[in-house]
């Protein structure tokens, strides 16, 4: 299946290689570099590149290309999904998945890769199992290790691989038993020029942080499970139970994990929490353009819209922007033509606005494209779909855990066309 893996940084250097079968020369990456050169943007490198003897399947995360070399037919998603899992694991281990972090922890990285694939076929990809095998580096542990000469490699053997619940470590112990669930919903929307919604949908996830002793068996029920149209589960969730009763019943993995991601049925109208008034004009023959933007809250159910960030890719002809923000700060990068405006919280009494002029290249005709405005925001303590967790019960263990549920709504791919 997966023959080799090369990690390539943004400047095109291979800084790590790993082979699971016979060694494949790194010159195979030349085909990748060719494709990279051809692509205008880094994300436009085709994920699958055929070469005379191999196929290169790559993913781009954190400005690092993870290039897998395969030799024969294998479902491309299989490889892509696995590579993303590798990145997630690195992130989980090192906090960041940057070139520096990988280089600093090259031995751990190598050990991880060794465990994750056997002969190119995934072996252990569950974070709980991996952490049992190879302990994540922490500052404290690094210090201790250098003094005592002990190692990162777990002394005990990976019993998790043998159990019926491979995602959970055995012998978990906590003094404070707690289970936190974050219901995070994202609104994906396209708003057209006139402010009407072209498409809007809600995607949600429930991320959990469960630190419970022993082998707890949890059930989570919703007040309104009908809202959930399409769901995908962590493997720990018992599917039959969900089918029959719409209850999430599961033995949780230890630590952080994504319990569920869902899509709210498209029949429901999506409440759009913000509106944008905009007036971006370029006049023919003049080297000036007008830029006006006002944000306001809408359908927020009384909750404040926070961490608002507006960004827009202005046309190439714009040389500079001279704007005035009533609130927050704005930046304009004359090279990339990216305008960002960090608004912060929207005050309904005093709506934030950004007004001013743009200077255009002299003599050039007016740009005929209009920039798209991308908006990010957060609303705390609300799930925009109205999803509510009813209760969380624990079976199988005697203690009383501390339970917490947090709701949040965020902008997903929220775009306003102008």
């Amino acid at each position: 299946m997966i023959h080799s893996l090369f990690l390539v940084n943004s400047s095109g250097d291979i800084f790590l290689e790993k082979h699971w079968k016979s060694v494949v020369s790194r010159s195979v990456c030349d085909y990748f570099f060719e494709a990279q050169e051809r692509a205008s943007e880094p994300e436009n490198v085709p994920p699958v590149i055929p070469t005379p003897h191999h196929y290169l399947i790559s993913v781009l995360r954190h400005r690092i290309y993870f290039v897998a070399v395969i030799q024969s037919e294998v479902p491309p998603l299989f490889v892509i999904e696995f590579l993303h899992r590798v990145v997630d694991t690195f992130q989980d281990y090192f906090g960041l998945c940057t070139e520096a972090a990988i280089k600093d922890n090259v031995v751990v990285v190598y050990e991880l890769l060794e465990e994750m694939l056997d002969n190119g076929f995934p072996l252990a990809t569950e974070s709980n199992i991996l952490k049992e095998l190879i302990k994540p580096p922490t500052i404290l542990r690094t210090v201790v290790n250098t003094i005592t000469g002990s190692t990162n490699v777990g002394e005990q053997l990976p019993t998790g691989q043998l159990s019926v619940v491979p995602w959970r470590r055995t012998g978990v112990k906590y003094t404070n038993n707690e289970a936190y669930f974050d219901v995070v919903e994202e609104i994906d929307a396209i708003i057209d020029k006139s402010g009407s919604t072209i498409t809007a949908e809600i995607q949600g996830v429930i991320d959990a942080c469960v630190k419970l002793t022993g082998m707890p068996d949890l059930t989570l029920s919703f007040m309104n499970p009908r809202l959930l149209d399409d769901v995908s589960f962590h493997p720990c969730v018992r599917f039959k139970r969900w089918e029959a009763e719409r209850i999430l019943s599961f033995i949780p993995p230890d630590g952080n994990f994504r319990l569920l991601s869902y899509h709210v049925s498209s029949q429901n109208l999506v409440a759009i929490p913000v509106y944008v008034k905009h007036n971006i004009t370029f006049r023919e023959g003049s080297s000036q353009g007008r830029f006006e933007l006002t944000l306001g809250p809408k359908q927020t159910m009384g909750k404040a819209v926070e961490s608002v960030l507006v960004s827009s890719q202005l046309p190439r002809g714009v040389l500079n922007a001279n704007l005035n923000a009533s609130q927050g700060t704005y930046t304009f990068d004359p090279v990339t033509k990216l305008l960002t405006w960090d608004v912060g919280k929207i005050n309904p009494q005093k709506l934030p606005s950004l007004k001013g002029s743009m200077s255009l290249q002299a003599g050039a005709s007016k740009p005929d494209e209009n920039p798209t405005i991308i908006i990010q925001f957060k609303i705390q303590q609300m799930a925009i779909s109205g999803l509510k967790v009813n209760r969380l019960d624990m079976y199988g263990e005697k203690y009383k855990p501390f339970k917490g549920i947090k709701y949040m709504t965020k902008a997903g791919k929220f775009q306003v066309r102008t």
Partner: protein
Amino acid sequence: MSSGSGFGDEKGGSSSVGEPEYGHDPASGGIFSSDYKRHDDLKEMLDSNKDSLKLEAMKRIVAMIARGKNASDLFPAVVKNVACKNIEVKKLVYVYLVRYAEEQQDLALLSISTFQRGLKDPNQLIRASALRVLSSIRVTIIVPIMMLAIKEAASDMSPYVRKTAAHAIPKLYSLDPEQKDQLIEVIEKLLADKTTLVAGSVVMAFEEVCPERIDLIHKNYRKLCNLLIDVEEWGQVVIINMLTRYARTQFLNPNVNESLLEESGEKAFYGSDDEEGKEEKAEAAALAKRKPYVMDPDHRLLLRNTKPLLQSRNAAVVMAVAQLYFHLAPKAEVGVIAKALVRLMRSHSEVQYVVLQNVATMTIKRRGMFEPYLKSFYIRSTDPTQIKILKLEVLTNLANETNISTILREFQTYIKSMDKDFVAATIQAIGRCATNIGEVRDTCLNGLVQLLSNRDELVVAESVVVIKKLLQMQPEQHSDIIKHMAKLTDNIQVPMARASILWLIGEYCEHVPKIAPDVLRKMAKTFTNEEDIVKLQIINLAAKLYLTNSKQTKLLTQYVLNLAKYDQNYDIRDRARFIRQLIVPTDKSGALSKYAKKLFLALKPAPVLESPFKDRDHFQLGSLSHLLNAKAGGYQELPDWPETAPDPSVRNVEVKDSVPEWTKCSSREKRKEKKVEKPFYSDSEEESGPTESADSESDSASGSGSGSESEESGSGSESEESREESESEQEDKEDEEDKRKKKKKTDRGKVKAPAVESPESEESSGAEEKNRAQKVKGRRSGSESESEEEEESESESSRSESESESESESDTDAKKKKKAPVTKPPPKQAKKESKKEKKEMSLLDLDDFEPTPSPQVTPVNNFLSSSLVTDLEGLSLTDTVMAPTTIAPSGSVKTYELLHRITGEGLGVEYCFSRQPFSPDAHMVAVQIMFTNNTNAETKNLHVEDPKLQSGMRIKEFPEIELLPPGEMVTVVMGIDFCDSTQAANFQLCTHIRKFFVSIQPPVGELMMPVFMTENEFKKEQGQLMGMNEISEKLTLGEKCQNEHGIVQRVTSAANVSRVPCGSDKECRFAGKTVSSGILVLVTVATKEERAAQLTVNCEKMVIGTMLVKDILQALTQ
């Protein structure tokens, strides 16, 4: 193949380029200036006694490997540490070893003995890791050692080691393909493995080593289907892809109905045995004509078991299921995958890229499927260009008359995008919409013409190209557009666009007779500066004009041709020469020039704008080959559906503790022969002999059975041999079962015993069958029905024995008591019965219970007084699962009707509460459901659908019954969690043709299960349940239940409770707890003088208490 050259490069590269860098390499220690010195240092560290130094050295070496630097000269120093105590050092040495062993084969052999030792380690994880590293060392000399190790590991008792063995198979195969035959043997063995851990890995090995040996899958097909949901996600992908291919070879195309009449006729016989088949052939054939296509139950099984995986978090799994449905499911069912695929569009862009490619292919064949999700394919300005273009493709494929206006509006905004490649693709897309949908052609054309005035040249050029294609469809009406385009030649520089315009003008020069020569004039002027494709079109234009309007253009044409004659490009020179000969009349010019006009101005067919994804679906979707639209190495062609289905019985599996379907035929034949020869009684008497021997055998079989069970949990250690042994015993057992079935036939002929009042033995056999059904749950229901039949025969035979006693008394104890004084039945009879009882117990054992003392004890019950029985209960009945079978003295299990055979159109369904714990879920009440097919047609795919339940209630459906032959009866068990309420559970009972709404309402007494407690415990519990929780009622006992036994029997038949031993004979006490929430239910019946009595029920749940009092009261007073 590239590995050899790879090494060369590696060495060369690292020695020339890599070496000088070493000094600056922080991981390898910057202080060492020269190369060999540094390695000396590492060697020194590796030779030292300190683990920390060794570790440090290994870390540096691994860092070197990671950077692709050569560290092979350290091999001897590193290999020495292979047996190091420190785990991390050891692991890093493994990493090094696997990387360089291929280069240093001789030295690598030094390490082999360490791994061989590891293979014998008592710890399964050490065995596994030893095998893993051993098999990763690519040294040809050790092939025999690896082979041996793999074979041994394949029969290891630890599933984890077996998994590792499966992983090792492809490694060995790639090292030495000669071993294929031996490896296939191992694969075959591992395919039979029942653990989820192994399944994915072995199928992966199968796919790499012998994907063509589809016959190996037959026997494991159903198992794989059933295990699928519990296999780890990567294994799921591999298994699903393999099963897709398998299904394509074994089942019929569900979407082709016409040609299948014949085969489905054949299929109708599936499962029915030869004899009956022969008799019914004509009938079945007639039937087949009515329902042309019937899906193979195994085909259905696959579809059903993969569907939940659409909910997987792993995109690869979702895609695998999607492609399975696309390739295998009936049209009507494919739709389910759309939602899941649309969900994947939220994922990383690489995932989107692959998914969109596949969606694009699907939308061509099944457009309707994705239409509801049209908006999910709308393009965002932040999408990468390759995603945008794929989305555009999907949108174009989805366009139809109804949604075209919204799509076009959307396209209009795309045209304003800054991403010019994307704009160009959008224009192409508009062109395709225009050609596909006639209604919007003019609108599109107008829109495109407007784009001609766009400032961006690329946009204009692309529009020109598309307009050209559109105009070709109806040129007459659009001469003004052509004129407009002619004007554009002054401005447009993009060669493709210029060429397109020139071609258009040439082609339709008759529509623009005035402009065309002028264009040619201009072009002639700039001819030398044009691109090649433009030049070719200028020549083309000149030729066409010469033919239509030679007066005006003769000289111009000559001029152009002369220019072309001396062009640098030989294509152009060739063309010029060719055209000159053709159009300019000379004396030598042949016959062709007469036809020049026809040649040049022939009517050209309009181009068809096609999706590049058309016909891609001959590649298996989701595969690499599909993505590249080219066959990748190792791609297994997706076979076409077979014309006739291959024999489906190849998938039947001989299951240890039930009779498989295919043995049915032969056994029945045998049975029929014997039936006539022997009278019933002698038969059964004779049978007691072999029965006993079978008894002891099956005991041992059960031992091994449970052994293999516990193996899964990693504790047991049962060797392969014992398993085989049990297999052979199985055969013995079958023989015995044959006999019994034969007996049953006799029974059926002689006695018509309605199941309703069948006594104790029915109960116990029902119980037994229940246990069995639980064990079997995942297994084929066909085999269940078989075992059921056999049980039934058991009960009926014993019933007919007691028939002579004219007593329908069901309590065995009571029976015994009565029998003794009457002495009607000879003691032999009783003895025989006890034997039978014994045998039944051992049959139970077979199912996998560890033999407990209880079965040995319980038969004695029959001869003991009931009080003793109750005393014994506390002692021997440790196994709760076993318990009800042995004590539940209440004979008559009430049967309720679920579906009358008239309303069910010949399908009669009855149910009863078998009072067995429902093993899949202890909170559920087991409901035994009996299907009788009274029609003369087969009923198929019996299953439960769409349960409508009160909140909190749950249903565990019985496994689908694939086939119910006419006149046959099948019993299955389902579990219902009634939540301790007597609310009915409503659901639909579906056959392959009909759905019936049915409901099951439990009597309150069935909501509980027996609890065993001592008198003291009972009193203590009762003390806590006073007051509101206690309900008392006075009553007068009915005629038949004046004595203690009568009461016991009545109460236990009304409620599933067990008797609590009691000191006084005036009082009968019973205890139970509700199944769902485990609340205690205590019943006391205190008898007084003259049939008067007092009934007390203590229960926390007052509703249950009240209802129970009512029920028991009724039972006792009758």
